[in-house]
């Protein structure tokens, strides 16, 4: 009953016309962000973060979250119609979604993707409603050693689940942690690596790094001659799937929703991984696995549901523990912090209107996305007719404005430019920059909790083994590391290698 009362409070906030308006704007912009090649959800959320500075925290987070889950919907449209994944999580949808489109079933594929996304997104929010508050209460028992262990687990999990190899992912995370140490040390007041640049005293911001790596970096490595679009928009009457197609999509949507949510809770690029795992699962369970790759309905319904459910699941650790599970969530956390709201176990009790308003807005947002994506698919697709040569200068302009507006600092824009070049280089040498952003985000929390733990214990490392929760978390780290090393030693081509191959191939 307590949850229902709280949810009612949330709906009283989420259904206010002004909040509804910002949820709508977020969903609309998110759909466009997901569709356009070159700007994924991370760059989209980062670039548009400054737009929320004038808003109250609830509207700000509702709009940014709308951009995030809206982009998951939008990504499927370009995947199905053009075989271009607007963002990485839509890679798997390209395969069967586009094959369905070539068979003349583009409308049905879009409808199944949208309905699957809606069901999965709603399932994810229900689970979030039920899981986040008790988890937050449990997390109140966490002290510095538990937080240190949890953050280490997050990094190890990321490395284990990543499509890159273990050393590459951990190297990127270490690089991010290192960048996170730039600036004034809050415990001793020492300036670290600031080179007499006052702006670096506050450290390197997440937004310039994220926009540089994922926005500008992508543009640098995408000359317009490589972007060719042949846009075909389906007619409204072609959108309804047949009864057989509905039947074929029912269980994949259900499985994708459950699978996606639980993968979403795990740190890493969960929504990308979830879509791949769901595709592999559906193929394995199918009575006709040979149809996969040639337009199997389950190959669209499963991955699309999984990636939407995962993007909702990713909010659980952020809201309940104050820990980001990926770079997009990290930027959303930064947005809350900019507004003076620390996410974490105290959020539910200290800011119930924000917490429950945000949760309720996700129910509403999913409905909005369904209403937006199906009837307006033709209008959205027409955006793709803008030639890329005209599109990317606009994106660069928004990158510059977005980054500059955060602190009115030109140093931030230089950092973005440098990170753009770094992102270009990392891409050439097959490094995934996502762990770098995650490392950068958790660096201050990690350093603080590590040092507090050591001070608490008088310099005794055993504190991490004497506290039961920390011990369990570290044991999971050891198991995961062991599994990863075992996997590397026998060099089997597991699903992560196949995901990497699929991403490279697409």
């Amino acid at each position, binding site marked *: 009953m307590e949850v229902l009362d709280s949810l009612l409070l949330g709906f009283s906030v989420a259904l206010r016309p002004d909040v509804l308006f910002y949820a709508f704007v977020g969903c609309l912009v998110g759909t466009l962000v997901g569709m356009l090649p070159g700007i994924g959800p991370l760059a989209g959320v980062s670039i548009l973060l400054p737009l929320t500075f004038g808003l109250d925290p609830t509207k700000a987070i509702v709009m940014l979250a709308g951009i995030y889950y809206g982009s998951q919907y939008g990504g499927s449209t370009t995947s199905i119609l053009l075989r271009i994944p607007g963002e990485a999580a839509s890679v798997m949808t390209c395969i069967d979604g586009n094959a369905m489109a070539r068979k003349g079933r583009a409308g049905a594929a879009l409808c199944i993707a949208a309905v699957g996304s809606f069901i999965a997104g709603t399932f994810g929010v229900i689970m979030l409603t039920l899981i986040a508050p008790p988890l937050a209460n449990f997390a109140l028992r966490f002290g510095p050693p538990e937080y240190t262990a949890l953050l280490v687990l997050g990094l190890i999990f990321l490395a284990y689940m990543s499509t890159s190899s273990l050393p590459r992912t951990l190297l990127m995370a*270490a690089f991010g942690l290192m960048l996170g140490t730039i600036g004034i040390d809050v415990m001793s007041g020492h300036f670290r690596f600031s080179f007499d640049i006052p702006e670096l005293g506050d450290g390197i911001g997440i937004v310039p790094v994220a926009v540089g790596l994922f926005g500008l970096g992508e543009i640098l490595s995408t000359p317009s001659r490589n972007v060719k679009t042949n846009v075909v928009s389906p007619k409204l009457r072609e959108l309804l799937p047949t009864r057989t197609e509905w039947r074929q999509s029912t269980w994949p949507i259900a499985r994708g929703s459950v699978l996606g949510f639980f993968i979403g809770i795990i740190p890493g690029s969960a929504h990308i991984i979830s879509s791949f795992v769901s595709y592999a699962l559906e193929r394995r369970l199918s009575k006709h696995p040979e149809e996969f790759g040639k337009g199997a309905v389950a190959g669209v319904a499963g991955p699309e549901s999984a990636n939407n459910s995962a993007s909702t699941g990713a909010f659980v650790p952020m809201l309940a523990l104050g820990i980001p599970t990926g770079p997009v969530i990290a930027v959303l956390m930064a947005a809350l912090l900019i507004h003076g709201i620390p996410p974490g176990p105290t959020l539910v009790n200290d800011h119930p209107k924000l917490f429950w308003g945000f949760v309720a807005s996700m129910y509403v947002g999913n409905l909005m996305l369904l209403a937006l994506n199906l009837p307006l698919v033709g209008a959205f697709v027409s955006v793709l007719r803008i030639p890329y040569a005209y599109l990317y200068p606009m994106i660069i302009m928004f990158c510059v404005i977005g980054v500059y507006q955060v602190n009115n600092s030109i140093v931030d824009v230089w950092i973005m430019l440098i990170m753009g070049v770094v992102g270009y280089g990392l891409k050439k040498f097959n490094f995934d920059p996502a762990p770098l952003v995650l490392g950068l985000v958790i660096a201050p929390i990690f350093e603080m909790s590590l040092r507090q733990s050591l001070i608490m214990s008088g310099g005794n490392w055993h504190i991490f083994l004497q506290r039961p929760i920390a011990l369990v978390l570290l044991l999971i780290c050891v198991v995961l590391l062991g599994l990863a090393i075992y996997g590397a030693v026998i060099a089997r081509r597991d699903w992560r290698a196949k995901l990497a191959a699929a991403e490279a191939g697409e």
Partner: protein
Amino acid sequence: MSGPGKSAAILRADHIAGGVFIALGIAVFILGWNLPFGRLSAPGAGMLPKLTAGLLILFAVIIVATGAASEKLSQLPWSDWIHAALVTGITAAAVSLYTTLGFLITMSLLIFTLLVLVERKNIVGSAAYAAALTLFAYWLFAIALKAPLERGLLWF
């Protein structure tokens, strides 16, 4: 009987990437030399930077050591480097002029230069597009959202 073309002598992508990160880790150690590491019971400001630099070097060494299986340096696709260099150079010029010239002038020039120099588009069309887009962004941020933009040389 090792000939000059033996693969062991070929520089691979991971050798270069690992080498760069090793150099970065060493640079962090040198630059952070004066930062106190402290003791375990009282960790100093230099503890995490040095720990992470150490980890960076460790993982980079592993990447170099296992780099023989990576792509040859010559096989990396570099066909986009001219595009990347031009976009970076033009954006860097715009960033350095941004606070002096202001939003409207700098962004118009940035978009115009990208279209004309990088994309070889028609000058008049590019100028019109650049002006229209910049004015739209100005309206969106400065007027609709009331987010202050750099004025620079202009008075509004």
